[in-house]
Protein backbone atom coordinates (compact mmCIF):
# COMPACT_ATOMS: atom_id res chain seq x y z
CA UNK A 1 0.00 0.00 0.00
CA UNK A 2 2.72 2.42 1.04
CA UNK A 3 4.88 1.29 -1.86
CA UNK A 4 2.02 2.01 -4.19
CA UNK A 5 1.46 5.43 -2.66
CA UNK A 6 5.03 6.65 -2.89
CA UNK A 7 5.55 5.64 -6.52
CA UNK A 8 1.95 6.21 -7.55
CA UNK A 9 2.01 9.85 -6.46
CA UNK A 10 5.21 10.57 -8.33
CA UNK A 11 4.14 8.55 -11.38
CA UNK A 12 2.24 11.15 -13.45
CA UNK A 13 5.07 13.68 -13.30
CA UNK A 14 7.68 10.95 -13.88
CA UNK A 15 5.87 9.56 -16.90
CA UNK A 16 5.41 13.05 -18.33
CA UNK A 17 9.09 13.96 -17.99
CA UNK A 18 10.29 10.65 -19.43
CA UNK A 19 7.78 10.56 -22.27
CA UNK A 20 7.91 14.19 -23.36
CA UNK A 21 11.40 15.26 -22.40
CA UNK A 22 13.84 12.40 -21.92
CA UNK A 23 12.66 10.27 -24.85
CA UNK A 24 12.43 13.11 -27.42
CA UNK A 25 15.83 14.55 -26.44
CA UNK A 26 17.48 11.10 -26.43
CA UNK A 27 15.98 10.32 -29.85
CA UNK A 28 17.21 13.67 -31.18
CA UNK A 29 20.74 13.03 -29.96
CA UNK A 30 20.73 9.35 -30.93
CA UNK A 31 19.68 10.25 -34.46
CA UNK A 32 22.98 12.08 -34.97
CA UNK A 33 24.85 8.79 -34.49
CA UNK A 34 22.81 6.88 -37.03
CA UNK A 35 23.85 8.70 -40.15
CA UNK A 36 24.61 6.46 -43.13
CA UNK A 37 27.92 8.27 -43.68
CA UNK A 38 29.36 7.04 -40.41
CA UNK A 39 28.73 7.23 -36.73
CA UNK A 40 30.39 10.59 -36.01
CA UNK A 41 29.91 12.10 -39.47
CA UNK A 42 27.62 15.00 -38.37
CA UNK A 43 30.18 15.99 -35.72
CA UNK A 44 33.06 15.72 -38.16
CA UNK A 45 31.07 17.94 -40.52
CA UNK A 46 30.36 20.39 -37.73
CA UNK A 47 33.94 20.76 -36.58
CA UNK A 48 35.32 20.75 -40.13
CA UNK A 49 33.28 23.79 -41.03
CA UNK A 50 34.99 27.04 -40.12
CA UNK A 51 31.65 28.82 -39.98
CA UNK A 52 30.09 26.35 -37.54
CA UNK A 53 33.17 26.38 -35.32
CA UNK A 54 33.01 30.17 -35.29
CA UNK A 55 29.39 30.02 -34.13
CA UNK A 56 30.31 27.65 -31.30
CA UNK A 57 33.32 29.70 -30.18
CA UNK A 58 31.36 32.94 -30.43
CA UNK A 59 28.60 31.49 -28.26
CA UNK A 60 31.09 30.32 -25.65
CA UNK A 61 32.84 33.69 -25.72
CA UNK A 62 29.59 35.64 -25.30
CA UNK A 63 28.50 33.34 -22.47
CA UNK A 64 31.87 33.63 -20.69
CA UNK A 65 32.05 37.42 -20.92
CA UNK A 66 28.41 37.71 -19.83
CA UNK A 67 29.11 35.44 -16.85
CA UNK A 68 32.20 37.35 -15.71
CA UNK A 69 30.54 40.77 -15.96
CA UNK A 70 27.34 39.52 -14.29
CA UNK A 71 29.36 37.97 -11.45
CA UNK A 72 31.22 41.19 -10.82
CA UNK A 73 28.23 43.53 -11.07
CA UNK A 74 25.84 41.15 -9.30
CA UNK A 75 28.20 40.45 -6.42
CA UNK A 76 28.79 44.09 -5.58
CA UNK A 77 25.10 44.94 -5.81
CA UNK A 78 24.11 41.89 -3.76
CA UNK A 79 26.74 42.71 -1.15
CA UNK A 80 25.40 46.25 -0.73
CA UNK A 81 21.78 45.03 -0.70
CA UNK A 82 22.58 42.44 1.97
CA UNK A 83 23.98 45.20 4.23
CA UNK A 84 20.96 47.46 3.86
CA UNK A 85 18.43 47.89 6.65
CA UNK A 86 15.10 46.08 6.21
CA UNK A 87 12.98 48.59 4.32
CA UNK A 88 15.64 49.70 1.83
CA UNK A 89 16.55 46.08 1.27
CA UNK A 90 13.01 45.07 0.27
CA UNK A 91 12.71 48.02 -2.09
CA UNK A 92 15.99 47.08 -3.76
CA UNK A 93 15.00 43.42 -4.04
CA UNK A 94 11.69 44.41 -5.63
CA UNK A 95 13.58 46.65 -8.07
CA UNK A 96 15.87 43.74 -8.96
CA UNK A 97 13.04 41.21 -9.29
CA UNK A 98 10.90 43.39 -11.50
CA UNK A 99 13.12 43.17 -14.60
CA UNK A 100 13.53 39.47 -13.91
CA UNK A 101 9.80 38.90 -14.15
CA UNK A 102 9.53 40.99 -17.31
CA UNK A 103 9.94 38.74 -20.31
CA UNK A 104 13.10 38.19 -22.32
CA UNK A 105 11.54 39.67 -25.46
CA UNK A 106 10.54 42.89 -23.72
CA UNK A 107 13.93 43.29 -22.09
CA UNK A 108 15.88 42.61 -25.27
CA UNK A 109 13.60 44.96 -27.17
CA UNK A 110 14.57 47.78 -24.80
CA UNK A 111 18.14 47.49 -26.09
CA UNK A 112 16.96 47.80 -29.68
CA UNK A 113 15.55 51.22 -28.79
CA UNK A 114 18.73 52.20 -26.97
CA UNK A 115 21.37 50.91 -29.37
CA UNK A 116 19.62 51.42 -32.72
CA UNK A 117 20.85 53.76 -35.49
CA UNK A 118 18.30 56.38 -34.42
CA UNK A 119 18.41 55.05 -30.89
CA UNK A 120 18.76 56.93 -27.67
CA UNK A 121 22.48 56.42 -27.29
CA UNK A 122 23.23 57.68 -30.80
CA UNK A 123 20.88 60.65 -30.38
CA UNK A 124 22.57 61.56 -27.12
CA UNK A 125 26.09 61.19 -28.44
CA UNK A 126 25.22 63.21 -31.55
CA UNK A 127 23.66 66.05 -29.59
CA UNK A 128 26.64 66.24 -27.26
CA UNK A 129 28.90 66.26 -30.27
CA UNK A 130 31.02 63.25 -29.38
CA UNK A 131 30.24 61.68 -32.75
CA UNK A 132 29.26 63.25 -36.04
CA UNK A 133 27.55 60.22 -37.54
CA UNK A 134 25.40 57.61 -35.81
CA UNK A 135 27.36 54.51 -34.82
CA UNK A 136 26.01 51.13 -35.83
CA UNK A 137 25.98 49.26 -32.56
CA UNK A 138 23.31 46.65 -33.22
CA UNK A 139 24.06 43.22 -34.64
CA UNK A 140 27.43 43.11 -32.94
CA UNK A 141 28.79 40.82 -30.28
CA UNK A 142 28.89 43.77 -27.89
CA UNK A 143 25.17 44.50 -28.22
CA UNK A 144 24.34 40.83 -27.54
CA UNK A 145 26.57 40.87 -24.45
CA UNK A 146 25.06 44.10 -23.06
CA UNK A 147 21.55 42.70 -23.43
CA UNK A 148 22.57 39.37 -21.89
CA UNK A 149 24.21 41.06 -18.91
CA UNK A 150 21.02 43.06 -18.54
CA UNK A 151 19.07 39.80 -18.59
CA UNK A 152 21.17 37.97 -16.03
CA UNK A 153 22.30 40.55 -13.47
CA UNK A 154 18.96 40.42 -11.59
CA UNK A 155 19.21 36.63 -11.41
CA UNK A 156 22.76 36.92 -10.09
CA UNK A 157 21.72 39.52 -7.51
CA UNK A 158 18.87 37.33 -6.24
CA UNK A 159 21.08 34.26 -6.01
CA UNK A 160 23.84 36.13 -4.17
CA UNK A 161 21.70 38.19 -1.77
CA UNK A 162 20.42 34.95 -0.25
CA UNK A 163 23.94 33.56 0.01
CA UNK A 164 25.46 36.73 1.50
CA UNK A 165 22.64 37.04 4.02
CA UNK A 166 23.30 33.47 5.05
CA UNK A 167 26.86 34.27 6.14
CA UNK A 168 26.78 34.37 9.94
CA UNK A 169 27.38 37.92 11.17
CA UNK A 170 29.33 36.50 14.14
CA UNK A 171 32.07 35.40 11.77
CA UNK A 172 32.38 38.88 10.31
CA UNK A 173 32.33 40.46 13.76
CA UNK A 174 34.90 37.99 15.00
CA UNK A 175 37.13 38.79 12.08
CA UNK A 176 36.78 42.55 12.59
CA UNK A 177 37.26 42.38 16.35
CA UNK A 178 40.41 40.34 15.85
CA UNK A 179 41.81 43.24 13.92
CA UNK A 180 41.24 42.27 10.28
CA UNK A 181 40.83 45.17 7.89
CA UNK A 182 37.56 45.24 5.90
CA UNK A 183 39.53 44.11 2.85
CA UNK A 184 41.03 41.17 4.71
CA UNK A 185 37.62 40.21 6.14
CA UNK A 186 36.24 40.34 2.66
CA UNK A 187 39.01 38.23 1.18
CA UNK A 188 39.36 35.68 3.95
CA UNK A 189 35.82 35.37 5.32
CA UNK A 190 33.14 36.66 2.98
CA UNK A 191 34.56 35.60 -0.38
CA UNK A 192 35.30 31.96 0.56
CA UNK A 193 31.87 31.58 2.15
CA UNK A 194 30.18 33.12 -0.87
CA UNK A 195 32.08 30.97 -3.37
CA UNK A 196 29.49 28.17 -3.62
CA UNK A 197 26.84 30.82 -4.33
CA UNK A 198 29.08 32.49 -6.88
CA UNK A 199 29.48 29.14 -8.62
CA UNK A 200 25.73 28.54 -8.67
CA UNK A 201 25.23 32.01 -10.12
CA UNK A 202 27.96 31.51 -12.69
CA UNK A 203 26.46 28.19 -13.82
CA UNK A 204 22.99 29.71 -14.15
CA UNK A 205 24.28 32.64 -16.19
CA UNK A 206 26.66 30.64 -18.36
CA UNK A 207 24.16 27.94 -19.29
CA UNK A 208 21.40 30.53 -19.68
CA UNK A 209 23.37 32.72 -22.05
CA UNK A 210 24.96 29.79 -23.88
CA UNK A 211 21.54 28.42 -24.79
CA UNK A 212 19.56 31.64 -25.22
CA UNK A 213 17.61 32.28 -28.37
CA UNK A 214 15.55 35.50 -28.30
CA UNK A 215 18.31 37.92 -27.31
CA UNK A 216 20.92 36.91 -29.93
CA UNK A 217 18.11 36.71 -32.48
CA UNK A 218 17.06 40.31 -31.83
CA UNK A 219 20.41 41.95 -31.13
CA UNK A 220 22.82 39.76 -33.07
CA UNK A 221 20.74 38.72 -36.04
CA UNK A 222 22.21 36.63 -38.83
CA UNK A 223 25.56 38.31 -38.48
CA UNK A 224 26.20 37.23 -34.94
CA UNK A 225 24.63 33.79 -34.99
CA UNK A 226 24.90 31.83 -31.76
CA UNK A 227 24.19 28.15 -31.09
CA UNK A 228 20.56 28.93 -30.19
CA UNK A 229 19.78 30.97 -33.29
CA UNK A 230 21.82 28.58 -35.44
CA UNK A 231 19.79 25.62 -34.18
CA UNK A 232 16.57 27.45 -35.02
CA UNK A 233 17.84 28.46 -38.45
CA UNK A 234 18.96 24.89 -39.29
CA UNK A 235 15.68 23.36 -38.09
CA UNK A 236 13.05 25.82 -39.27
CA UNK A 237 14.61 27.71 -42.18
CA UNK A 238 16.81 25.20 -43.99
CA UNK A 239 15.10 22.07 -42.58
CA UNK A 240 18.47 20.45 -41.98
CA UNK A 241 17.35 18.34 -39.05
CA UNK A 242 20.55 16.36 -38.76
CA UNK A 243 22.52 19.59 -38.53
CA UNK A 244 20.05 20.98 -35.99
CA UNK A 245 20.19 17.78 -33.94
CA UNK A 246 23.99 17.94 -33.93
CA UNK A 247 23.88 21.49 -32.59
CA UNK A 248 21.32 20.34 -29.99
CA UNK A 249 23.59 17.49 -28.90
CA UNK A 250 26.61 19.80 -28.54
CA UNK A 251 24.52 22.24 -26.49
CA UNK A 252 23.34 19.47 -24.16
CA UNK A 253 26.87 18.15 -23.66
CA UNK A 254 28.28 21.62 -22.91
CA UNK A 255 25.53 22.65 -20.47
CA UNK A 256 25.30 19.36 -18.58
CA UNK A 257 29.11 19.14 -18.55
CA UNK A 258 29.41 22.62 -17.02
CA UNK A 259 26.73 21.85 -14.43
CA UNK A 260 28.43 18.60 -13.37
CA UNK A 261 31.96 20.03 -13.22
CA UNK A 262 30.96 23.18 -11.38
CA UNK A 263 28.75 21.41 -8.85
CA UNK A 264 31.67 19.08 -8.07
CA UNK A 265 33.99 22.07 -7.60
CA UNK A 266 31.37 23.82 -5.47
CA UNK A 267 31.08 20.79 -3.20
CA UNK A 268 34.82 20.61 -2.75
CA UNK A 269 35.18 24.32 -2.05
CA UNK A 270 32.33 24.64 0.42
CA UNK A 271 34.04 25.63 3.69
CA UNK A 272 30.78 25.33 5.66
CA UNK A 273 30.47 21.61 4.95
CA UNK A 274 32.89 19.85 7.25
Amino acid at each position, binding site marked *: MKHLAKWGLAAPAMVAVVLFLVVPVVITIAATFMEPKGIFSPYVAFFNSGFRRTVLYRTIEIALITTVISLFVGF*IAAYVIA*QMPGRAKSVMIIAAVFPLL*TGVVVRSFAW*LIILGKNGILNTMLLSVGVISEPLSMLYSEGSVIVAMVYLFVPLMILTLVGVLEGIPQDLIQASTSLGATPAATFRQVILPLATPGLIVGAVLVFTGSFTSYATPQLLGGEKQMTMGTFLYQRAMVTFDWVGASTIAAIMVVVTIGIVLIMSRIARRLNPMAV
Partner: protein
Amino acid sequence: MMIQRVHPLLIAFTVCVFFFLLAPLVIIIGSAFSDTSYLTFPPQGLTLRWFWNIFEIEAFRTTAVTSFELAFLGTGLSLLMGIPAAYAISRYRLELPSWLSTLFILPILVPEIVFGFSLMKSITIGLDLPIFASLLIGHALLVLPYSVRVVSASLASFDFSIEEAAISLGCPPVKTFMTVVLPNIRAGVIAAFILAFITSINDVSVSVFLTGPGISTLPIQILAHMEQFFDPTIASVSVLLMLVTVGVMAIVEATLGLTFLTK
Protein backbone atom coordinates in the same frame (compact mmCIF):
# COMPACT_ATOMS: atom_id res chain seq x y z
CA MET B 1 22.11 42.19 12.69
CA MET B 2 24.89 44.67 12.89
CA ILE B 3 25.00 46.82 9.82
CA GLN B 4 28.47 47.17 8.47
CA ARG B 5 29.66 50.36 7.03
CA VAL B 6 29.53 50.04 3.27
CA HIS B 7 32.08 51.93 1.26
CA PRO B 8 30.49 54.91 -0.57
CA LEU B 9 32.03 53.74 -3.83
CA LEU B 10 30.18 50.45 -3.54
CA ILE B 11 26.93 52.28 -2.90
CA ALA B 12 27.54 54.54 -5.90
CA PHE B 13 28.25 51.47 -8.02
CA THR B 14 25.03 49.82 -6.85
CA VAL B 15 23.04 52.95 -7.69
CA CYS B 16 24.47 52.71 -11.22
CA VAL B 17 23.48 49.04 -11.39
CA PHE B 18 19.91 49.90 -10.52
CA PHE B 19 19.91 52.71 -13.05
CA PHE B 20 21.12 50.16 -15.62
CA LEU B 21 18.37 47.73 -14.59
CA LEU B 22 15.48 50.18 -14.55
CA ALA B 23 16.28 52.81 -17.18
CA PRO B 24 15.54 50.51 -20.16
CA LEU B 25 12.10 49.78 -18.72
CA VAL B 26 11.43 53.49 -18.27
CA ILE B 27 12.49 54.00 -21.89
CA ILE B 28 10.00 51.37 -23.06
CA ILE B 29 7.21 53.01 -21.06
CA GLY B 30 8.11 56.46 -22.42
CA SER B 31 8.27 55.40 -26.03
CA ALA B 32 4.90 53.64 -25.79
CA PHE B 33 3.24 57.05 -25.52
CA SER B 34 5.11 58.74 -28.35
CA ASP B 35 3.05 60.45 -31.02
CA THR B 36 5.37 59.25 -33.79
CA SER B 37 5.11 56.27 -36.09
CA TYR B 38 8.60 55.13 -35.14
CA LEU B 39 10.05 54.28 -31.76
CA THR B 40 11.68 57.17 -30.01
CA PHE B 41 12.57 58.41 -26.58
CA PRO B 42 11.88 60.87 -25.04
CA PRO B 43 8.38 60.65 -26.54
CA GLN B 44 7.42 63.33 -29.07
CA GLY B 45 3.98 64.38 -27.93
CA LEU B 46 1.76 62.06 -25.96
CA THR B 47 -0.84 59.67 -27.30
CA LEU B 48 -2.63 56.50 -26.32
CA ARG B 49 -3.18 55.43 -29.88
CA TRP B 50 -0.53 52.71 -29.81
CA PHE B 51 -2.39 51.08 -26.98
CA TRP B 52 -5.59 51.09 -29.05
CA ASN B 53 -3.58 49.79 -31.97
CA ILE B 54 -2.80 46.61 -30.02
CA PHE B 55 -6.47 45.80 -29.77
CA GLU B 56 -7.02 46.56 -33.43
CA ILE B 57 -4.38 44.09 -34.54
CA GLU B 58 -6.12 40.75 -34.46
CA ALA B 59 -2.88 38.79 -34.15
CA PHE B 60 -2.14 40.43 -30.80
CA ARG B 61 -5.61 39.70 -29.47
CA THR B 62 -5.63 36.03 -30.44
CA THR B 63 -2.05 35.34 -29.36
CA ALA B 64 -2.63 37.05 -26.00
CA VAL B 65 -5.64 34.80 -25.41
CA THR B 66 -3.58 31.74 -26.39
CA SER B 67 -0.75 32.79 -24.08
CA PHE B 68 -3.04 33.23 -21.09
CA GLU B 69 -4.84 29.94 -21.79
CA LEU B 70 -1.52 28.15 -22.06
CA ALA B 71 -0.17 29.74 -18.90
CA PHE B 72 -3.27 28.84 -16.86
CA LEU B 73 -3.72 25.33 -18.23
CA GLY B 74 -0.02 24.50 -18.40
CA THR B 75 0.62 25.75 -14.87
CA GLY B 76 -2.50 23.94 -13.63
CA LEU B 77 -1.36 20.69 -15.23
CA SER B 78 2.13 21.06 -13.83
CA LEU B 79 0.71 21.59 -10.33
CA LEU B 80 -1.61 18.58 -10.69
CA MET B 81 1.42 16.44 -11.51
CA GLY B 82 3.92 18.33 -9.40
CA ILE B 83 2.17 18.54 -6.02
CA PRO B 84 1.73 14.74 -5.64
CA ALA B 85 5.32 14.24 -6.82
CA ALA B 86 6.62 16.84 -4.36
CA TYR B 87 4.58 15.19 -1.63
CA ALA B 88 6.01 11.76 -2.44
CA ILE B 89 9.56 13.14 -2.49
CA SER B 90 9.20 14.88 0.87
CA ARG B 91 7.11 12.23 2.64
CA TYR B 92 9.08 9.19 1.50
CA ARG B 93 12.43 10.95 1.30
CA LEU B 94 14.47 8.01 2.52
CA GLU B 95 12.59 5.35 0.61
CA LEU B 96 12.74 6.89 -2.86
CA PRO B 97 15.91 6.97 -4.93
CA SER B 98 17.66 10.34 -5.14
CA TRP B 99 17.62 10.40 -8.94
CA LEU B 100 13.89 11.03 -8.72
CA SER B 101 14.33 14.66 -7.65
CA THR B 102 16.98 15.11 -10.35
CA LEU B 103 14.50 13.84 -12.92
CA PHE B 104 12.12 16.65 -12.03
CA ILE B 105 14.70 19.39 -12.60
CA LEU B 106 15.60 18.05 -16.04
CA PRO B 107 13.30 20.54 -17.80
CA ILE B 108 15.55 23.28 -16.39
CA LEU B 109 18.80 21.42 -17.01
CA VAL B 110 18.12 20.59 -20.65
CA PRO B 111 18.46 23.75 -22.78
CA GLU B 112 14.99 25.07 -23.57
CA ILE B 113 15.73 25.41 -27.23
CA VAL B 114 16.84 21.76 -27.43
CA PHE B 115 13.71 20.72 -25.56
CA GLY B 116 11.50 22.72 -27.91
CA PHE B 117 13.15 21.32 -31.03
CA SER B 118 13.02 17.70 -29.79
CA LEU B 119 9.42 18.05 -28.70
CA MET B 120 8.46 19.50 -32.07
CA LYS B 121 10.08 16.60 -33.91
CA SER B 122 8.56 13.91 -31.70
CA ILE B 123 5.06 15.09 -30.92
CA THR B 124 4.02 17.78 -33.39
CA ILE B 125 5.48 15.92 -36.35
CA GLY B 126 5.91 12.37 -35.02
CA LEU B 127 2.60 11.99 -33.23
CA ASP B 128 0.83 14.55 -35.41
CA LEU B 129 -0.60 16.24 -32.33
CA PRO B 130 -2.63 19.45 -32.74
CA ILE B 131 -0.58 22.62 -32.21
CA PHE B 132 -2.36 23.72 -29.05
CA ALA B 133 -1.89 20.29 -27.45
CA SER B 134 1.82 20.33 -28.30
CA LEU B 135 2.18 23.81 -26.84
CA LEU B 136 0.32 22.75 -23.71
CA ILE B 137 2.55 19.73 -23.17
CA GLY B 138 5.63 21.87 -23.77
CA HIS B 139 4.55 24.58 -21.32
CA ALA B 140 3.38 22.14 -18.62
CA LEU B 141 6.78 20.41 -18.69
CA LEU B 142 8.72 23.65 -18.92
CA VAL B 143 7.21 24.85 -15.64
CA LEU B 144 7.03 21.47 -13.87
CA PRO B 145 10.35 22.05 -12.02
CA TYR B 146 8.86 25.11 -10.28
CA SER B 147 5.85 23.11 -9.11
CA VAL B 148 7.91 20.24 -7.79
CA ARG B 149 10.74 22.23 -6.22
CA VAL B 150 8.87 25.14 -4.69
CA VAL B 151 6.18 22.85 -3.26
CA SER B 152 8.84 20.40 -1.95
CA ALA B 153 10.59 23.33 -0.29
CA SER B 154 7.47 24.26 1.63
CA LEU B 155 6.75 20.60 2.48
CA ALA B 156 10.25 20.37 3.95
CA SER B 157 9.10 22.42 6.93
CA PHE B 158 5.81 20.54 7.27
CA ASP B 159 5.47 18.22 10.25
CA PHE B 160 4.11 14.96 8.84
CA SER B 161 3.13 13.75 12.31
CA ILE B 162 0.13 16.12 12.17
CA GLU B 163 -1.00 14.28 9.08
CA GLU B 164 -0.49 10.91 10.76
CA ALA B 165 -2.56 12.11 13.71
CA ALA B 166 -5.45 12.99 11.40
CA ILE B 167 -5.25 9.64 9.61
CA SER B 168 -5.02 7.63 12.83
CA LEU B 169 -8.11 9.46 14.04
CA GLY B 170 -9.93 8.10 11.02
CA CYS B 171 -9.72 10.89 8.47
CA PRO B 172 -9.48 9.50 4.92
CA PRO B 173 -6.09 10.21 3.22
CA VAL B 174 -7.43 12.48 0.50
CA LYS B 175 -9.47 14.52 2.96
CA THR B 176 -6.43 14.70 5.23
CA PHE B 177 -4.37 16.07 2.38
CA MET B 178 -6.98 18.68 1.51
CA THR B 179 -7.71 19.85 5.05
CA VAL B 180 -4.37 19.32 6.83
CA VAL B 181 -1.50 19.31 4.34
CA LEU B 182 -2.67 21.69 1.63
CA PRO B 183 -3.47 24.66 3.91
CA ASN B 184 0.03 24.34 5.38
CA ILE B 185 1.78 24.52 2.04
CA ARG B 186 -0.53 27.14 0.55
CA ALA B 187 2.23 29.74 0.27
CA GLY B 188 4.44 27.29 -1.63
CA VAL B 189 1.65 26.43 -4.06
CA ILE B 190 0.94 30.11 -4.74
CA ALA B 191 4.64 30.81 -5.25
CA ALA B 192 4.96 27.85 -7.61
CA PHE B 193 1.91 28.97 -9.54
CA ILE B 194 3.22 32.50 -9.97
CA LEU B 195 6.75 31.52 -11.02
CA ALA B 196 5.35 28.95 -13.43
CA PHE B 197 2.76 31.33 -14.85
CA ILE B 198 5.32 34.08 -15.50
CA THR B 199 7.74 31.61 -17.07
CA SER B 200 5.05 30.26 -19.36
CA ILE B 201 3.67 33.60 -20.45
CA ASN B 202 7.15 34.90 -21.37
CA ASP B 203 8.51 31.75 -22.99
CA VAL B 204 10.06 32.03 -26.42
CA SER B 205 12.56 29.21 -26.84
CA VAL B 206 10.11 26.31 -26.46
CA SER B 207 7.11 27.98 -28.10
CA VAL B 208 9.03 29.10 -31.18
CA PHE B 209 9.18 25.49 -32.37
CA LEU B 210 5.70 24.44 -31.31
CA THR B 211 3.62 27.29 -32.73
CA GLY B 212 2.21 26.67 -36.15
CA PRO B 213 -0.29 27.88 -38.70
CA GLY B 214 -3.04 29.79 -36.93
CA ILE B 215 -1.76 29.35 -33.38
CA SER B 216 0.99 31.45 -31.86
CA THR B 217 1.84 32.97 -28.51
CA LEU B 218 2.20 36.61 -27.57
CA PRO B 219 6.02 36.78 -27.27
CA ILE B 220 6.40 35.05 -30.65
CA GLN B 221 3.90 37.47 -32.16
CA ILE B 222 5.84 40.40 -30.68
CA LEU B 223 9.03 39.07 -32.29
CA ALA B 224 7.28 38.70 -35.63
CA HIS B 225 5.74 42.17 -35.45
CA MET B 226 9.10 43.68 -34.55
CA GLU B 227 10.70 42.25 -37.66
CA GLN B 228 8.10 43.95 -39.88
CA PHE B 229 7.27 47.20 -38.12
CA PHE B 230 9.37 49.05 -35.63
CA ASP B 231 6.58 51.17 -34.19
CA PRO B 232 5.51 52.06 -30.64
CA THR B 233 2.89 49.26 -30.66
CA ILE B 234 5.59 46.91 -29.44
CA ALA B 235 6.43 49.28 -26.61
CA SER B 236 2.79 49.49 -25.58
CA VAL B 237 2.39 45.69 -25.61
CA SER B 238 5.50 45.57 -23.46
CA VAL B 239 3.95 48.08 -21.07
CA LEU B 240 0.84 45.90 -20.76
CA LEU B 241 3.04 42.87 -20.05
CA MET B 242 4.84 44.88 -17.39
CA LEU B 243 1.48 45.72 -15.84
CA VAL B 244 0.78 41.98 -15.63
CA THR B 245 4.11 41.63 -13.82
CA VAL B 246 3.22 44.46 -11.44
CA GLY B 247 -0.10 42.76 -10.71
CA VAL B 248 1.62 39.46 -10.04
CA MET B 249 4.15 41.13 -7.75
CA ALA B 250 1.37 42.82 -5.84
CA ILE B 251 -0.24 39.41 -5.30
CA VAL B 252 3.07 37.96 -4.12
CA GLU B 253 3.69 40.86 -1.78
CA ALA B 254 0.18 40.54 -0.32
CA THR B 255 0.32 36.78 0.18
CA LEU B 256 3.91 35.78 0.80
CA GLY B 257 6.05 38.88 0.99
CA LEU B 258 8.61 39.27 -1.76
CA THR B 259 11.51 38.18 0.42
CA PHE B 260 10.61 34.54 -0.28
CA LEU B 261 12.31 35.03 -3.62
CA THR B 262 15.76 35.26 -2.07
CA LYS B 263 15.33 32.23 0.15
